[in-house]
């Protein structure tokens, strides 16, 4: 059926080497997804250990030291090694397909970003066997993070987070270039799918916020190892400076975590309501507004730091303001499903669950914006409840919805829907059982980041409930894993367009060919694919357009004799230099981490520089097209 020939060397399309050298955005997306899922299991295990320790008062399962490392790594893992890479997985796989492109703008940079992420996350985890993992909380407040030098744990933090940030930055640059320059003919910006829009917004958020924390982290490393005094109060430095630098990144970061999930839900709801997205332009503009305003609220994480009434009033107000575009999106999602013909597939259940859970988390967030109320909530479990509602009930539910929605496109098979619905309900109940009690615990005064709590304060019952809930979540995740493994091999076969979709990724086969589209489509509408399938009859109902069947637009090129008249599609060649360069950068990072032991540090630094230069020079020098062999 293929009507175009590709000129990328296809000698190795299977086997480990083909994955190591791939620059295909779809394969890179799959690697991101698998890595993110593995880290999800690791971060989840850390959470279960935390919950076991806190199930009873004065728990003895974990020492304070072990607990502090576990909760720090739980936060770092979930943010940097799970949510960001799973968003990157979806963005990598689907943005080119949704805009009608064959790959991203910079395929080798794409591969580099993935390998850098994977090696950096593994490097961070190696700390467990080299004196212990970072134990300063994921926010790493100075001077705790700069003063304790008995171990190099916080050097691992400073470098690990730095490297992961570089990987995300590389991805952001790629997506911005791709989305602005590689859209199919006729796809104006306001005809792009919402998921692609959210990708470009988050890419700008990362582009502008990562350098700030990058600088801050260098300052931590230098304060620890090279005698600088950025955060040293005793020398006119200022610990508060770190809090500002961290949160100027940290707040846009949480929108980076949620916006792609909102984009996914904005695609799933219309498909399973058989209605277009209500107020498409406002959903897009609200995403942009959230991104923009997200840079103006950072000090709401610092309301107890003594900023003074003027600053606190300003940031409190700005934080309330950001609830408006968020509310617009929520009402538009409700408007999408209102009066629609709903199909309650697992993807739809997770999307509806997302809306409900995100509203709860958003409401507790609005209570934080009231400064005098926040001073009671700050550093209590009420805050922990809030962010888990928006990050798990919000982001994770959205990404799980995406798994059920897009699995057929990746693999050509459906996930088991019955098992999926069971998995949804178990996860939903377990999630609420775990985190709803934390609102009460926080308002009752239980502080966060404490490895144990005393008897007699009324914390016992809710903590036990939360622990039971966390094991239900674990069961839910296990069921998802079983569903993925089982369906990958034996799932029901899925066609190109299993859900009667609206966006361009459903026009190509499941899974897509390496070149994505035989013929680049010409776009006339938002949800262009839907309009190719359906016209409208006299009563305004959708009517299937007869010429297009099966949801796949087939193009004959050159009649029967495809070989001669078929046009060649050139795909980017695989390369091993991105993985080499990524490895070199991580070795440089390792050298810097060990700066307190100069012999080890300099050796690794030198080795890393050599490997990085080899990778970069090879990358720059290799021919863009390689001969097929």
């Amino acid at each position, binding site marked *: 059926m293929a009507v175009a020939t590709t000129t990328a060397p296809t000698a190795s399309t299977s086997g480990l080497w083909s994955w190591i050298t791939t620059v295909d955005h779809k394969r890179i997306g799959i690697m991101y997804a698998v890595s993110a899922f593995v880290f999800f299991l690791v971060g989840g295990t850390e959470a279960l250990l935390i919950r076991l320790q806190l199930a009873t008062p004065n728990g003895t399962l974990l020492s*304070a*030291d072990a607990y*502090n490392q576990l909760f720090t790594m739980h936060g770092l893992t979930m943010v940097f090694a799970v949510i960001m890479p799973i968003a990157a997985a979806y963005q990598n796989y689907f943005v080119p397909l949704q805009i009608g492109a064959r790959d991203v703008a910079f395929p080798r940079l794409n591969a580099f970003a993935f390998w850098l992420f994977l090696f950096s996350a593994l490097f961070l985890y190696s700390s467990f066997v080299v004196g212990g993992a970072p*134990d*300063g*909380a994921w926010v790493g*407040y*100075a*001077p*705790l993070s700069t*003063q*304790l030098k008995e171990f190099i744990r916080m050097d691992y933090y400073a470098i690990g987070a730095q490297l992961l940030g570089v990987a995300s930055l590389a991805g952001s640059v790629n997506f911005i270039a791709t989305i602005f320059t590689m859209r199919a003919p*006729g796809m104006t910006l*306001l005809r792009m799918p919402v998921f692609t829009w959210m990708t470009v917004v988050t890419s700008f958020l990362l582009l502008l916020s990562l350098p700030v924390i990058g600088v801050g982290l260098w300052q931590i490393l230098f304060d620890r190892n090279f005698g600088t005094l950025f955060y040293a*109060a*005793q020398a006119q*430095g*200022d*610990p*508060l400076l770190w809090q500002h630098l961290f949160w100027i990144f940290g707040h846009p970061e949480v929108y980076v975590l949620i916006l792609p999930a909102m984009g996914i839900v904005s695609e799933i709801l219309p498909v399973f309501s058989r209605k277009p997205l*209500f*107020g498409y*332009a*406002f959903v897009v503009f609200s995403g942009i507004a959230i991104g923009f305003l997200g840079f103006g609220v950072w000090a709401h994480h610092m*309301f*107890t*730091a*003594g*900023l*003074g*009434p*003027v600053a*606190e*009033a300003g940031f409190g*107000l700005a934080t*309330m*303001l950001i609830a*408006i575009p968020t*509310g*617009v999106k929520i*009402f*538009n999602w409700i*408007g999408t499903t209102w009066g629609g013909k709903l199909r309650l597939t697992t993807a739809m259940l997770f999307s509806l669950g997302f809306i409900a859970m995100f509203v709860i988390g958003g409401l507790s967030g609005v209570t934080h914006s009231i*400064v*005098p*109320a926040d*001073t*009671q909530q*700050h*550093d*209590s479990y009420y805050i922990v409840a809030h962010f888990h509602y928006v990050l798990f009930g919000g982001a994770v539910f959205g990404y799980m919805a995406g798994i059920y929605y897009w699995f057929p496109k990746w693999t050509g098979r459906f996930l088991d829907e019955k098992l999926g619905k069971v998995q949804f309900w178990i996860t939903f109940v377990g999630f609420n059982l775990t985190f709803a009690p934390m609102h009460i615990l926080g308002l009752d*005064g239980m*502080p*966060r*980041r*404490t*490895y*144990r*709590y005393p008897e007699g304060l009324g914390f016992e019952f809710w903590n036990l409930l939360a622990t039971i809930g966390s094991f239900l979540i674990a069961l839910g995740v296990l069921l998802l894993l079983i569903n993925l493994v089982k369906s990958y091999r034996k799932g029901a076969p899925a066609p190109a367009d299993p859900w009667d979709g609206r966006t361009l990724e459903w026009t190509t086969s499941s899974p897509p060919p390496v070149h994505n589209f035989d013929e680049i489509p010409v776009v*006339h509408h938002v949800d262009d694919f839907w309009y190719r399938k359906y016209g409208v009859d006299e009563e305004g109902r959708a009517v299937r357009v007869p010429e297009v069947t099966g949801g796949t637009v087939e193009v004959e090129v050159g009649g029967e004799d495809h070989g001669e008249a078929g046009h060649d599609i050139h795909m980017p060649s695989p390369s091993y230099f991105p993985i080499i360069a990524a490895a070199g950068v991580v070795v440089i990072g390792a050298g810097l981490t060990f700066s307190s032991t100069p012999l080890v540090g300099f050796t690794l630094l030198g080795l890393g520089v050599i490997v990085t230069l080899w990778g970069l020079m090879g990358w720059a020098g290799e021919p863009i097209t390689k001969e097929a062999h």
Partner: protein
Amino acid sequence: MTTEELHVDPAERNWIVASIMLLVVFGVAVAIAGFMLGIQVPTEEQRVDPRTVAQEAPWSNPGVRELVPGEEYEVYILASRFSFVPNTFEVPVGARVTFYVTSTDVQHGFKLQDTNVNFMALPGQVSKLTTTFEEPGTYSYICTEYCGLGHAVMAGSVTVTEPGGNA
């Protein structure tokens, strides 16, 4: 190719107008509360050197100072890993009590449990907050900013006495 117009659904437009009006109302309310009603939020009072702060007045002698008997009190507290000095102290009910708290090492917090009196104690910075205890009794306070291994046990208590000196 036709250019498309932005069609705003009337329900959507009304919702957005209503939201903006709510925002204006909230903004005015916050301004009134902050500037006219004198709602207290923690402020940075002054800068100190954490290396010498415990050796110099007033933190060389931390604790309660009576400025106007029964009405005005100051409490100077030093936070360090992992205790507050003084750990326990007394103030009378109904008096204005101003806390001055600083740290000698890393970030700490000071929170009176079940109240919104919660502020950071950072080295190099004195945090100041004024409050009034309405009811006598013993209140615990805890460290709220994660400060390391002993964070979970860093706590103290304040006894609020009746006029006449009884708790």
